[in-house]
């Protein structure tokens, strides 16, 4: 069992990174969107390996099933053409930005590695209980009821704002 988990972890992890790189390097927006969907599936696989079935399936249901459908819908409606080639849009500013991004990435990886390398090496024995929908719901709606309601209100305000903006444009 341990070996199977390690193999699956490696496969999902490598494919997740690979699909993320493919996503940002494709010139066709639909191809980028498809790679992003593939990436979500790989991340969902990683959640399954951590025994977090609920979060894994929500990842697919919400991101791959709902949000990305809207993305593709919009791309199709806008009739976007291929992006320009990399060599056509490269400026010194962008090259510097890329260098600093890599630096920031290295810093983040280093920080995570130093602080967490020896901790959390195995899955908690209570992982399955904690990640069950019943327990998640109890925590979210009893202990964290106020933040949840606040986020809900915020999202509602965002939706109302979006509708108002869209209406103004069409009138």
């Amino acid at each position, binding site marked *: 069992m341990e070996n199977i988990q390690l193999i699956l972890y490696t496969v999902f992890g490598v494919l997740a990174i690979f699909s993320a790189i493919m996503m940002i390097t494709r010139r066709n927006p*639909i191809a980028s969107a498809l790679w992003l969907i593939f990436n979500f599936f790989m991340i969902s696989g990683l959640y399954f390996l951590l025994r977090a*079935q609920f979060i894994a399936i929500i990842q697919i*249901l919400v991101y791959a099933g*709902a949000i990305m*459908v809207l993305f*593709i819908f919009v791309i*199709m409606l806008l009739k976007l053409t291929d992006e320009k080639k990399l060599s056509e849009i490269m400026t010194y500013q962008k090259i510097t930005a890329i260098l600093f991004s890599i630096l920031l990435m290295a810093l983040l990886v280093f920080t995570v590695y130093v602080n967490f390398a020896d901790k959390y090496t195995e899955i908690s024995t209570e992982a399955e209980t904690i990640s*069950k929908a019943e327990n998640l719901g109890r925590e979210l709606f009893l202990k964290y009821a106020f933040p949840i309601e606040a986020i809900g209100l915020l999202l509602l305000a965002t939706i109302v704002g979006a509708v108002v903006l869209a209406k103004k444009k069409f009138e």
Partner: protein
Amino acid sequence: MPAAVQYIIIPLVKVVLIQITLLIGVALTVWLERRTAGFIQDRYGPNRVGPFGLLQPVADVVKLFMKEDIVPEKANKFIHSLAPAISVTIALSTIAVIPFADPIQLFGSEFKLQIADVNIGILYILAMVSLGVYGVTLSGWASNNKYSLLGGLRSSAQMISYELSMGVAVLGIILVNGTFELDTIVQNQAGWKWNIILQPVGFLIFLTAAFAETNRTPFDLPEAEQELVGGYHTEYSSLKFALFFLSEYANVIVSACVITTLYLGGYQFPYLQTFGLSPVLVSILQIITFLIKIFIIVFFFIWIRWTVPRFRYDQLMVLGWKVMLPLALANLTITAIIVTLLK
């Protein structure tokens, strides 16, 4: 039992058996649909190949094999081929969480008649339903044809709209049963405590949404022949077209399985366990009960297709957003109040 047998061989055998049954079911449904259409329109329907025309689907598949596979010159070749594969994969994989009977005791160990007994069964089904839209949308886009694109756009808008009502209707079931596990939900419906009696409005909403999600009449706007030639599969021929055809009928059967499991007592035959039969016989009778229930729902799907005309696009959207969604939300609220009061 060694781990390799338990985790690899037994699930593999189950997958193969269930998928073969599903594919045979698809062939029979195609035949049933054409015969029923013939009966409703006062003509014969296919009756020449084999007894009662039963081998007609086989002849159709052979014909489709022989046809030339045409890909439009300006199509996106890869996605054009990928789309039917996505459709079929998703249609066939939804059945993995459906329980077919009580666990059987054989050779001293217990066998579950279900491919995957996961504690998120309902969510898995909803996730698969929400992914089903990709096959249609991508095929519409990749064909580089205005009719296909319109079909694809219609279908994504339609599926997103009806998915919401479907999800909210299912929440009622989750509230009543207190679990995501399909097996437990079926166990809870023993006797006559079917969820259709507890959740009649939810059942109607789910049934309507299932019609919309499977692109069946009266919601077959993505392929409306009179306006869009063939909709999203206008540019498909040969086996790729056959795959879309297969996935449509597989979706019908799987929807029937889901409706039966969630609302019509699943494999339960009322009070079967109290007759004192041997457990293996009980399981076999349960499988037969399940198949009969599925047959009735599938027949209902076909019956509706040949009697109800198609909606207009604006009517479809009004029904989805202004009728079904508020109704589903009201159903959810009332269910929540009753469940809380009875606790």
